[in-house]
């Protein structure tokens, strides 16, 4: 019992350390980037010493960097994410209002990607050269075409020409279909390849021969035996595609006029809107920590051999 508690405590401690490191690195990166926040807030508008002084005083930017950093950490510990320089609103509220559409998009895209990848891999693995080549080509295209182009193509065909789905907004399930596809197709491409390679390796293993010898059909061999082996490398990719989805979400959100964290993050980074950038970094770091924990657990579920260790 004690050892389990100790393991949990270690995990939580490591998570907090990761969050702190991410926050500090982001803070330093923004600080080192050229130009200062006041410049960005002034933009191409009038720029006089009085205007600069007023902005500086309003946000406490006249204090030394290290003092600002410590003050930020102090507020963070109290759960205060601060106010956005640009949006003039509470950062916690801004993120909260954009979280749901983002989560919807990411889950729908990830779901689309996983389902498509599984279907394609199971249907084409060990099926002779032609289906395999066709699937492989489709995967390559979906991975190499930029999400922006995929999005425009989907819009042109399914929204502007056929009129099946609306272009914009986050209202209603119909509006989620095209963005989820635009973001999900590249995931399906990468994941599909990884899965099929794994499947084909597994199908050459002695256990596959044994299964076939027991009279199992090829489909059943793939679905019941080989897939489990192929999932291990695929699960490792989950962490990777969380990152890629968050990056792709920026483009997808702008293209489709969807609310979401991607757009907020991009505006905040280009506007040196420190409180928003920091909050997003901390949020994403927390998501990564959570996902890597889940992935470790998933290994144990998928592969019984790991449970004993």
């Amino acid at each position, binding site marked *: 019992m004690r050892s389990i508690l100790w393991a949990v405590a270690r995990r939580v401690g490591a998570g907090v350390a990761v969050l702190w490191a991410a926050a500090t690195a982001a803070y330093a990166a923004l600080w080192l980037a050229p130009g200062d926040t006041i*410049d960005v807030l002034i933009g191409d508008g*009038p720029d006089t010493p009085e205007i600069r002084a007023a902005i500086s005083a309003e946000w406490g930017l006249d204090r030394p960097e290290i003092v600002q950093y410590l003050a930020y950490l102090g507020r963070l510990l109290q759960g205060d994410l601060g106010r956005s320089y640009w949006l003039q609103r509470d950062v916690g509220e801004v993120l909260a*209002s954009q979280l749901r559409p983002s989560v*919807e998009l990411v889950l729908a895209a990830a779901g*689309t990607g996983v389902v498509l990848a599984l279907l394609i891999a199971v249907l084409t693995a060990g099926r002779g050269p032609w289906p395999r080549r066709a699937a492989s080509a489709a995967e390559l295209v979906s991975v190499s075409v930029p999400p922006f182009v995929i999005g425009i193509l989907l819009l042109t065909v399914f*929204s502007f020409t056929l009129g099946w789905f609306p272009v*914009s*907004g986050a209202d*209603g399930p119909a509006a989620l279909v095209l963005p989820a596809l635009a973001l999900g197709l590249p995931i399906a491409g990468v994941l599909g390849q990884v899965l099929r390679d794994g499947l084909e390796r597994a199908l050459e293993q002695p256990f596959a021969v044994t299964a076939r010898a027991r009279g199992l059909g090829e489909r059943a061999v793939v679905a019941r035996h080989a897939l489990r082996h192929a999932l291990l490398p695929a699960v490792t990719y989950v962490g990777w595609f969380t990152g890629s989805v968050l990056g792709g979400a920026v483009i997808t959100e702008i293209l489709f006029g969807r609310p979401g964290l991607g757009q907020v993050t991009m505006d905040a980074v280009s506007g040196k809107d420190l409180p928003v950038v920091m909050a997003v970094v901390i949020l994403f770091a927390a998501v990564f920590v959570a996902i890597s924990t889940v992935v470790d657990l998933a290994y144990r579920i998928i592969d019984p051999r790991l449970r004993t260790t």
Partner: protein
Amino acid sequence: MKLSKVVPPLVLALALTACGGQGAPEAAKSDGGSLTWAIETEPITFNPHQWAQNKARLLVFNQFDALLAKDAKGGYAPWLATSWEVSDDGRTYTLRLRDDVTFHDGTKFDAAAVKANLEKFSEPDYNPAVKAIQLRTLDKVEVVSATTVKITLNEPDTLFLDFLASPYAGQVSPKSLRSAKDLKAGGPDLVGTGPFILDRYVKGQEAHYRRNPAYKWPPATAAHQGPAHLAELTYRFLPEAAVRVGALTSGQVDVIEGVPATEVKLIKADPDLTYQTALNSGTAFSYYFNTSHAPFDDKRVRQAFREAVDVDAVLNSVYQGTATRAWSIVAKSSPFYDATLEGTFGGDTAKANKLLDEAGWTGRDSEGYRTKDGKRLTVRAVASAPFVRDRRDILAQAIQAQVKQTAGIDYQIKIVDQGTAQKALDDNAYELFENSRGDSDAGAALNLILPEDAAINRTHFHDPDVDKWLAAAAADSDTAERARLYAKVQQAAVTEHAIVFPLYVPADQIAARKSVQGLGFDPASGTPRNAYDVRIGT
């Protein structure tokens, strides 16, 4: 197989949004109907006092009314103020106000409200830029009676009328100025007196308005009286031009603004759509020369750069015949535009080469660029990515190719983030900078660009005569006299000193379904007007 590709996301999407539970789109359609308008730029703020984006101007006057309106001739018309008097010394403005106006929160609009709105700007953190520029001369505001307010300035400032007709003079309910949760961001809880009431804002997606049924105080420039025609109004934020056009042609939105040059032909050819365009107010999009160091400290090099470019050909190839060439800093739409400058520069490559030879740039290096004392004739421009629009990056590339080919000038343009751009400006590490401004009174823009200590004088240009003329024009309320003074200013900047290379006059475009009527442009800015006069005909 084809089916299965479409089904999983659909099923997933259904499952996801079912637990989310966003209501079905409103079916409510009272008389006047509803309209959806796709716009390019999401406003940073809904507080008119904090307004900073010309592209978001069309939203401001849905929710708010200003004290005065600007008419098509550059004069002023009554709005919430029925009349105004300026004292002989130009320092006291007495406004008489309508007595039948109420804010959306039910409170009454009166002289005390005007005072509260103006005095809000004196708070140090509220809007330091307006405090330092537009309200620089404000001394005091006195309530004479419920319908009369007297404003005193420290010195005469004819641009004060322009302020009274600007979004900054949009009247906000003093009650909501005190109670709004996010005052500087605005939103449904910061209310005005306008023809529409903002009732929903979804960041990144849309702003939704409903009609103000009590509205009966439009500006004298409006086409009708009483409440707005439309019962409901939705602005969708679609930053991608191709997506806006697709949404319009497929009937998903009724109106779009910001039509790219490449799509104009397609829209004009469509019998179900209408297209209109207007030139923006303010200054033309121009290259300004940094006169503080070589090579543009030499007037001949500045002139040579202008002569090296065939502006008409470049504009035609980049904007496909939709751009209007500029000849002055001041935009062609302004009453202060000096038309005598037309045809005075550009496109004479022989002259360009002669000027450069005279200026001593006679050598040539291995890549064909001109040199002087072993140094290449390089000019650098730094543009901040968030402000690069209208294919200005493509325009820069076209000019870059031309000046290299015709005159051996090495023009380098870097598009960078705002911080890096600002650093280059601070370090004086640029020879060219590009700029256009959307000020409704071109004089306001000239005051920011040309005087020696002006806030965005990045040419480091100084001419005491120009400073004198600008000061005199700012204090004079006679439009003809101001035009005469501004003409002298323009001639000095464009011809005598050649510190600027005007390129084109920015414009705005509206495309709509044929049934949508009453769309148009705000004469003060040349940007799309609010939706008060818009209706859906049959």
